[in-house]
């Protein structure tokens, strides 16, 4: 602010006077830089192929896909083996109690979601089918996809626990829905 001259202008308003100091140089500098920024910004994004938000999104998703862990697909027999492992069932129960009881109830009798204890299954009763239903969900019926919340191993544990509910007698069972499955 070396150029401050503090020359008073000749007018006054209700006792308020004004100096005629020049614009501070640093202030003018900020103004010029902000205008230059804008003058570059517009052509970069609109005429020189700067990435639009859809491009940025595609890149973000591609990067995520590239770094995603490979999930080995297990056949029914391998899933059966997991379903027989008490520690996996235990882990599955903990997850079930946290995420599933709101719709399927603690004993699997069903409420908003279907009964899991009878032999009727809407989307298939094999372990492969159950894992698939949990993983992908059934959006049109209100079953959400759990793959962004649970890992593949966790989903298998949940399926292992659900498997133990078959044939149990819940306190307040919901009527059967779907096709019978005889595993």
């Amino acid at each position: 602010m070396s150029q401050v001259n503090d020359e008073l202008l000749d007018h006054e308003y209700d006792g308020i006077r004004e100096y005629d100091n020049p614009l501070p140089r640093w202030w003018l500098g900020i103004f010029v830089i902000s205008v230059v920024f804008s003058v570059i910004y517009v052509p970069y994004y609109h005429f020189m192929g700067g990435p639009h938000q859809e491009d940025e999104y595609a890149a973000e998703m591609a990067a995520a896909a590239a770094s995603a862990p490979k999930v080995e697909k297990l056949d029914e027999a391998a899933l059966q083996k997991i379903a027989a492992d008490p520690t996996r069932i235990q882990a599955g129960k903990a997850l079930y109690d946290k995420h599933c009881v709101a719709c399927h109830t603690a004993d699997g009798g069903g409420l908003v979601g279907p009964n899991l204890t009878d032999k009727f299954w809407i989307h298939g009763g094999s372990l492969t089918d159950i894992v698939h239903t949990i993983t992908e969900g059934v959006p049109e019926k209100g079953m959400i996809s759990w793959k962004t919340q649970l890992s593949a191993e966790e989903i298998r544990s949940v399926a292992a626990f659900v498997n133990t509910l078959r044939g149990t007698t819940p306190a307040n069972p919901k009527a059967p829905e779907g096709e019978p499955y005889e595993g």
Partner: protein
Amino acid sequence: MKVEEFQYDDKIVRKFVVATVVWGVVGMLVGLIIAFQLVVHQLNFDLPFLTFGRLRPLHTNAVIFAFVGNGIFAGVYYSTQRLLKARMFNDGLSKFHFWGWQAIIVSAAVTLPLGITTSKEYAELEWPIDIAIAVVWVVFAINFFGTLVKRRERHLYVAIWFYIASIVAVALLHIVNSLALPVSILKSYSIYAGIQDALVQWWYGHNAVAFFLTTPYLGLMYYFMPKAAQRPVYSYRLSVVHFWSLVFLYMWAGPHHLLYTSLPQWAQTLGTTFSIMLIAPSWGGMINGLLTLRGAWDKLRTDPVLKFMVAAITFYGMSTFEGPMMSLKSVNALSHYTNWTIAHVHAGALGWNGFLTFGMLYWLVPRLWGAKQLHSTKMATTHFWLGLVGIGMYVLSMWAAGIAEGLMWKEFDADGRLVYATWADTLPTLNPMYWVRGLGGTLYFVGVIMMVVNLWKTAKSGTPVDQTDAAAPLPEPAGAGAGGLHRLLEGKPLTFTVLTTVAVAAGGAFEIIPSLLIDSNVPTIAAVKPYTPLELEGRDIYISEGCYNCHSQHVRPFRGETERYGPYSKAGEFVYDHPFQFGSRRIGPDLHRVGGKYPDGWHYRHMIDPRDTSEGSVMPSYPWLADDPLDLSMTQAKVKAMTVFNVPYSDADVANAVENAKAQAAAIGKRLEDQKLPNAQDKKIVALIAYLQRLGTDIRAEGAQ
């Protein structure tokens, strides 16, 4: 030279001062309540009119239009008369303005808690009140410009420039944004839909900040700061340059509220670039305010008025730097929908508007009530420090909370899972910060109460001043005195006002008109169909309960959002949304893709008690939705109103609206029964469920085709 004698009307200023203080206390108290509701959901008391969704608009409207509004009018009525050496144009208009404005505030305080709202933020009031606002504003304008006409000061001081810009711009913003089609005395639909409604709304919302919270207060600053400091304004030239650049550039920046949405890219670019270009014009005001104190910094130690004003101007400078930074897309990707925005606006509202008002009040009250001095300088100084610490706690905690939220929403683990998969997972991190915010707000509020006591005792110690005698010669003939072109312009209020109007109108016109007229801005999606009559009713319940205050309806194109919610939102999905429901804050999760995500029964239980389905939720319970009868008496009129906007309902759709609504309600009732819940087919809740289940689902049908 002939000297005229006349009186300034100080009684009207006193009235506005009292209203400022009273509404300030009310608005801030409501703010405190809703701050604590976010950590203690029981504070919603399961009562409709006390829920966060209904009280939050009351808080924002009370603080902006009642507290700051009356503060503006107090300062404008006091300073304008003195700067123009003339009594206000007409005492009757002054009184009409005062009582009209208070009546509007009272009607807002009644209707908003009752759920009567348009849901457009800071423009929530329904159409009859909107018309009243327009009328009162025009009366204010006539009174103000009438005073300009009969002024005894030829040239207009910079404060008056800012008043002119504010009066013109607020009228323009209010009228364009409030255009709506009434369906009843207390219900209307915005004439704009979806992304266009969003653009108009945030052009309004951003510029309400500009021309209600900023430019009038810059005018007040230009009067009260040099008066209190008894020093000349730093630079007249800076005033000229920053005034014109500010009023021209501000109007273009609205789209920065819609970055990464489905708003066309060109409009987003304007939002970003004009925000960056606003830094210098804003700081021009800060420089002129702060440097006015050169040579008088020592007064800061003893004078609470100057303390408040200097801190206010500093907060202004900080907020007007932070705002443009948040308009950069990379920053906005993190900050949008978070508490960072809350921190930003409160640095402005508590720091700039609040502190400048307090400074002005401490300066005005002794003068207006004929007191020798302020009752207690010490108390005012304590108020200052309490307020400053309060703002510090508020802003720092909400910055931290905002950044933490933004990061948590985007965090994935190595398996590609969301680390904070359920919404409640993020709350333990935020809760301590909410407590700090609430404590900061409490300190600020205690300071305000101290001010009330101090001002009350000051007023009691004097004799109220109704008018002040003044004398002035008639203005010199035009063209007298030296000066350049701008000096000449300052002697021509009409030309000045016309040029200001052009500068102000340019940005909005350039952005809004093409977006309304050029179809390519909203690519159509064939699968997107109008809402059913029941869904329309449910949407009105959603609006009435103020759901948009906590839930956005716009998924942005980020992995953290599409993995959590579903495919990102497209402009074509919102073409039947009168008004749009994008929201601006995620206190709860986004709802644009909630349709079909959960069964009907889940929604029923969630509404009765959110904790039942979502452990740790802070959402209020809405038990009355399952008790209140579903009112279909307006349904047909609502569907018919939509046809005025060319929403493609057939004549049969209109004729059978109620029948169709009942059939859909019965189907939902049946499903609830199947899910072992009460069949609520004749209750409000089924309409809301119908609406929620429809949200964001049309596009799936397109994917299936």
